[in-house]
């Protein structure tokens, strides 16, 4: 009892000191707590900060499991799909119980920079705000703010690791739809960085689907060779790195599967060829919604916990 109390205290003061020191050294990294709710003995919080990569104010949700009171916990990053904010996942997916059980910190960032006043950013739901596709944009109007890939893989982990009781050595990533695409490319582009990866109905082959082609041409230009480093299927074909265990759930009644936006078969074929372990589960009757996600979220948390807590 006493020990855990002390730990709590020290963790709190550690957090405080860290915050203060960061605050002085990197003023732009100062965190502001937006909300905090107790959930399964831990806390579901939302923070706001000024992003250096994105040059805008960004929010992210973070679930701190009860274990985080006493020790450093692994971090699992969640990337949401098109049109989402940090709120969708933390309110709908119901991941907190499993995360509390396995002692995982779950970080759910926003899906794109916001309020950057870029022309056309709010014109369509599948491009611009809420549709960053987790790439580092190279096109002129986007390249300043739309650096979500770097934000997800660099800035955000740094921020989390330095402000929360997070173990920087243990992180994994997963996501849904566009976020599934983001999770897969983050893992495939950075062998060893993520212990494991999983996805719900990911956009597996964006260079071959309407959403991807629109976004990539917008952010990266028309040179398709510049798209390749952001296509999971293409990345898988050339992947050679540390072993990666990929779990993918796909609703069979997903309208976007039928619409050819997701193309998981291409990814599986690539992985089979490259001997990348994938378990792909085509779930009878499920669609693309968060109802589908919440049904299988526990399986995914377990999948990551197996590697993160190994």
């Amino acid at each position: 009892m006493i020990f855990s109390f002390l730990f709590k205290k020290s963790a709190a003061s550690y957090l405080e000191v860290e915050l203060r020191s960061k605050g002085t050294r990197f003023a732009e990294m100062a965190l502001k707590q937006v909300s905090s709710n107790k959930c399964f003995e831990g806390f579901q919080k939302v923070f706001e900060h000024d992003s250096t990569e994105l040059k805008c104010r960004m929010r992210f949700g973070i679930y701190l499991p009860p274990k985080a009171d006493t020790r450093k916990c692994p971090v699992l990053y969640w990337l949401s799909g098109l049109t989402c904010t940090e709120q969708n996942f933390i309110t709908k997916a119901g991941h907190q119980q499993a995360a509390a059980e396995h002692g995982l910190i779950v970080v759910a960032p926003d899906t794109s920079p916001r309020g950057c006043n870029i022309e056309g950013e709010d014109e369509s739901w599948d491009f611009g705000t809420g549709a960053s596709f987790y790439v580092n944009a190279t096109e002129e109007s986007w390249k300043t703010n739309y650096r979500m890939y770097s934000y997800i893989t660099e800035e955000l982990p740094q921020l989390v690791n330095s402000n929360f009781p997070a173990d920087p050595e243990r992180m994994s990533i997963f996501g849904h739809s566009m976020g599934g695409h983001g999770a897969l490319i983050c893992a495939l582009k950075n062998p060893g960085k993520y212990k494991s990866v999983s996805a719900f109905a990911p956009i597996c082959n964006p260079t071959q689907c309407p959403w991807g082609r629109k976004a990539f041409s917008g952010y990266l230009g028309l040179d398709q060779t510049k798209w390749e480093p952001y296509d999971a299927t293409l990345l898988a074909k050339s992947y050679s790195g540390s072993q990666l265990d990929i779990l993918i759930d796909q609703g069979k009644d997903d309208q976007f599967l039928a619409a050819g936006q997701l193309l998981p078969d291409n990814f599986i074929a690539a992985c089979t060829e490259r001997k990348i372990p994938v378990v792909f589960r085509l779930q009878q009757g499920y669609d693309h919604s968060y109802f589908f996600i919440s049904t299988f979220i526990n399986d995914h948390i377990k999948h990551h916990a197996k590697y993160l807590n190994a």
Partner: protein
Amino acid sequence: MSSSPTATTETETTSNNPDKVSAGDLDQSKDETTSGLDEDPEGLKFYHMDLYESKERLDIFPDVQVTEKKGHGVTAEVPEQSGEKDQLEYSSQKEIDELARLYGLEEDKEIVEDFRVEQTPLPGVSDKGETFIQKYNVEHKKIKPQQSVENREQEYGTKIFQDTMQEHDDVSSNSHFDEEAVNNATNRENQRIDTDSKLDKNDSTQSEPTTQHQKEEIADIYCVTCETPIRAFEKLFGIHKEHEVTELSNVIQDVKEEIHNNMCKLEEQIAQLENLAIHLEEIFISVEENVVRQEQNFEIRYNEVMQALTQRYEEKLQTLGEEKREKLESLYDQLVASGKKLDSSRELMESIQELLKSKEKVEFIKTAVNTADRVEEFFKTDTELEISINPEYENKTIDFSDVQQLMDSISAVPAPSAPIVNPQSPNSATGTSVRVCWSPFSEDTVECYQLYYKPVSDDPPTEQQTEFMMKVKETYCTVYNLILNTQYEFWVTALNTTGISPASERAVYVTAPSPPIIKPKDCRSCETAALVRWESGNMNPVDSYTVELCKVSTEDHESDITESIVGIPTCESLIQLDPREKYHIYVRAVNVGGVSERSKPITIHTTGTFFHLNEETAHPLLSILEDGFTIACQEEESLLDFSYHYNSFTRCIAVMGNLIPVKGKHYWEVDTDENVEYRIGVAFEDTNRNGVFGTNNTSWCMRHIVTPSRHKYEFLHCGSTPDVWITIPPRKIGILLDYEKWKLSFFNMDLLQHLYTFSCHFQHLVHPIFALEKPGVLRIRNGVGVPKCLSFF
């Protein structure tokens, strides 16, 4: 108020504190009644009249008390006085106790106590207006109380004295005596009774100073000459002037002591006499018994002797008669013979006389010669004149030696009766020996026993069956060199100088069984338990089995700590074990006689779940290789030729594993090749032998099929499978069966990749199944621990 103020202080007390005085008086007089010293019994009678007087009357005195107190300042005296009075009561109580103890009147004591309690309220109420009583009381106090007080104070410690004094003080200072006070008094009384026992232990010397103080004031003495108590002044002025006197208290004490001593002696004597009486009674009874027994014995014995004598008499008579007859017969014969001879000699005489009478000479000569020849001839025949028969009865002596012996035997030890062989006591036998015990018939004198035994057999008894005999001095014997788990009959005869007893009833003893034989192929285990099966190893049935477990340390040392499970009726046992240990398990058979040797051990590792394949269930096309865990399927031949075991799978080329019936967590692995087509999983033990795994609700399996485009994996139950794509064909499949979580999970163990999990509530126990759909090989690995990383599933 006081009429005869001999001791001023006393009087003052009385007048100042009427309540108290009366209390003291009451106690005193009661004391006297109970202790039986000289006193006026009237005292008691009158008190009862005053019980629970009206309040008006109670209120008479308090005024006086208060004023007097102020005037004289004798309050210091009061408590002491009251204390003394109080102690009178203790004394009385003590004496009552003592008497009760002495005479065993425990019940009476209660009565006395009740009596005392009843009286306690009296102090406050007693002598209002009753001048007579008061007078009497005061009078008495002058003489008796002081004596008593001295006694008491010698007997009881000042400590108690002070305590009680205080108590009394409280009550006495309460001028308005009412019912509450009555209650108090009652309570106090109860307390006193409690403290009585303490009082007994008090040392008399403690109260010495107080006693001294009292002596100076008043002293009563005892005239030794007249043997009567007298007043002190009488020694100086009265008839006792010249007499030897001593202190009354001393005399009383002496007398009491003497009485007490006498009483103790008497008590001892009574006890001794009582014991003696009991003892005598016992002896009386045993004498009677013994006499009766002896009478019976004599009756039997003398009857025997009488019978023997009668018999002898008859025998003798008979022989005598025969002798007589013989003798008479021979005499008669002799008589007849001699008669004949007489006749013939007479005839001769007559013929000679005839001859002499004849005149003719020639005739005479002729006849004379002829007659002379006849006479000569006659004389030649021997005439037997001696009597061959002795008229006397020759054998005069009668042989009484046997009768004498019989007579002697009456006073000698009787021959023993048949002993009784005890039933076999448990654990008294080994495989080759039994310990037989028996008891002689009571009171027999036995010099030794003869123990006979032979094996019991159902065959009709033949001459060849050998009986064995041993001579034993003791009433027990261990018989060796017997056959395992065999019944033997034992019977015993007892011997002494007089003779040999009849044989006892036959008792059957059994030798311990031979050790069972563990069947290693039928044994299974998991992390928390082992199922061990064995063969009896005995022709005859045994009662039960005992399993012994020894933990084996890492250095292969068997620990001494052996756990035993006893009373197992069947040839199998499910044994709870600790996880991740190594055990040696032994079995012993037990019957009435004892416990067999240990069986050969079986080694159990509780690192994981271990099972064997049930060969009975194997499809004819499926072969289990020598290691017992590799199964192979040959090229299909004509199925018609095969003979199926009744329990074997007939549709799937499959075999079932014998999983331990423990609903815990079980894990095993299957090594295979990428292109082998198989169904592996679990099924209920009674799953349809003619069914296909996964198509019914009694089996769950993972199926691998090679299609032209890909490796297809199905996770089948009730014929349906989820759509799961696996990019890397697993070569080492881990199967985790978890009854607690109701889950069956499959893993690619090379990657530690989770493939699929069935969630189902297994109603019954399930067993592993392995089926090959095409020629190929599956290698089963079990007895391995659950990999830690699988604990999430």
